[in-house]
């Protein structure tokens, strides 16, 4: 039972790492907590759901197609909202409230468009046979979900650490002003990071249909907090830490599901509060407190 929990925990950990990664990219470049992150995940899930139901698209085919739309939406969102806000005094708080409002709007529109029902995709879309590994039997969708998450995590890593744009993105994350002073086009880089953040949200949303069973229009609020917990656990503004945070969260969740299942739903909240209070910089450490 413990071996199964650990193995499943690693699979879910990769998934939760992806869930947090998009949120953390957006935070990293702008110091904005995108409270609508979970709602974008929900939109990604519904995109995959409708593409599958209307045209029979495999969700893995839907990912790149709708991903492009999410990148463009993210960039548009950045150019529309952020430059007017950046001048305001209480930028951090105002942007938080703004994205809180946005999440309400997205959720309300989704209820109007799709009805307030949970949706899921018939599971055998990725094959019927369970996967046997290290003497454990795992549902194939978990393995596919973890695999897709891993692919995107690696892609983000390559983007951030092996391309010039990624190099500039990390410069903006470290210090906006200094990056601008060294000739980085901060707005373009940040807009791109917004776009990539939303793309990752859409992928994670599609995978939620399989990893979490179903997605309904009000799915966003809870998963945003989970994503934030994962991000805080790994350290805000630290993309590598987020993957670690996801793994810690995934394993903790699966162990709790096995031994204390009625309390598992409280886990993200407790982890978030404990990390913020005890080790606010996350496992790897950076400061978020002030006076």
């Amino acid at each position: 039972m413990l071996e199964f929990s650990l193995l499943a925990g690693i699979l879910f950990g990769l998934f939760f790492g992806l869930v947090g990664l998009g949120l953390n990219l957006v935070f990293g470049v702008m110091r904005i907590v995108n409270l609508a992150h979970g709602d974008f995940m929900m939109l990604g899930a519904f995109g995959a759901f409708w593409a599958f139901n209307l045209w029979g698209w495999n969700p893995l085919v839907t990912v790149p197609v709708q991903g492009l739309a999410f990148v463009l939406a993210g960039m548009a969102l950045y150019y529309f909202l952020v430059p007017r806000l950046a001048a305001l005094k209480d930028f951090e708080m105002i942007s938080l409230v703004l994205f809180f409002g946005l999440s309400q709007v997205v959720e309300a529109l989704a209820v109007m468009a799709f009805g307030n029902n949970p949706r899921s995709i018939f599971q055998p879309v990725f094959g019927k046979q369970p996967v046997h590994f290290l003497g454990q039997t795992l549902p194939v969708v978990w393995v596919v979900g973890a695999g897709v998450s891993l692919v995107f995590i690696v892609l983000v890593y390559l983007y951030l650490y092996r391309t010039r744009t990624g190099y500039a993105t990390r410069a903006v994350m470290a210090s906006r002003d200094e990056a601008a002073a060294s000739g980085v086009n901060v707005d373009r880089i940040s807009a791109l990071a917004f776009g990539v953040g939303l793309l990752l949200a859409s992928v994670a949303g599609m995978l939620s249909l399989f990893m979490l069973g179903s997605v309904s229009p009000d799915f966003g609020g809870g998963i945003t907090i989970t994503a934030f917990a994962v991000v805080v656990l790994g350290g805000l503004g630290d993309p590598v830490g987020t993957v670690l945070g996801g793994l810690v969260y995934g394993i903790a969740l699966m162990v709790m599901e096995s031994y204390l299942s009625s309390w598992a739903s409280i886990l993200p909240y407790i982890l978030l509060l404990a990390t913020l209070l005890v080790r606010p910089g996350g496992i790897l450490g950076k400061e978020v407190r002030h006076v």
Partner: protein
Amino acid sequence: MFKRPLDLGLVVLIPVLFAVAPFVYNNQLLLFNTMLFLALAQGINIIYGFTGYLPFGYVGFFGAGVYGASLAVLFLHVPALLAVLLGGLAALVLGLVLSPLLRLSGAYFAIATLAASQAVYYVIANPSLANVTKGPYGINLSVVFNPQMSYLTMAVITGLVTAVVVYLKRSHLGLSLKAVRDDPLAAEMAGIDVERQRMLAWIWSALFAGLTGAAFAWQISVFYPDTVFDPGISIFAIVFALFGGAGTVLGPILGVVVLYGVYNLIGITEPQYFQLIYGVLIMVLVVFLPEGIVSLLKRGGVNVL
């Protein structure tokens, strides 16, 4: 403190108006809910308007009050009025437990309170605690059911919370809180105990949400945990406070009267339309009118309390 006749008038007028309102208008539940949101919006006002800390999870205190009062009635068999006080106490204790969150900067604080309210909800609604909290199966307080007394209690609470906001607005404490909000570093240099001041506002804010929750439990007497921990309650209170103008006495009152009035005039058939409207309102307000509609009056030269 309440030397100005207008201040005292406002504090007395609101509960008196609500106390006589049922004689001319027969929808008592609507009047009760108006008072409820008035108290919650002022509670948000105490913490957000005076410290800049916005608790997204404010409903956690409301729910703590509901359950504090309910468990006091069911297990200690106390009279309902005392139970309301104990409900307030429960929220106050929760506020003290969560007070370390005030060390966080504003944005983290906002999300952390949201997480805290969810954590409290999942503890209370947990089936394995069903013999204490009744878990997800809900509470029945029909033994103390008394719509008139609970209504009047709510009117008194509304008066009290208004008094606290007037006090903050007029007192040295309120002034130093605003100094902390505008520039914590400078305030600290000026000799203000930043953490203690924030803590005071936080505790007052929690207490009133708890009292309001307790009075609500008494009024409706049968409810489920997901009713009283509904994040929509926080959203309503925040929108009302923001719309009217936080940091003033009249702002949240105006916000509730206008927005909650419109809400009920149109009639709620599809809650998502209001979620949409309120979501848009939050976005527009925070960018274009961060000080609410009272700031329009101020610009027009009216001296707003």
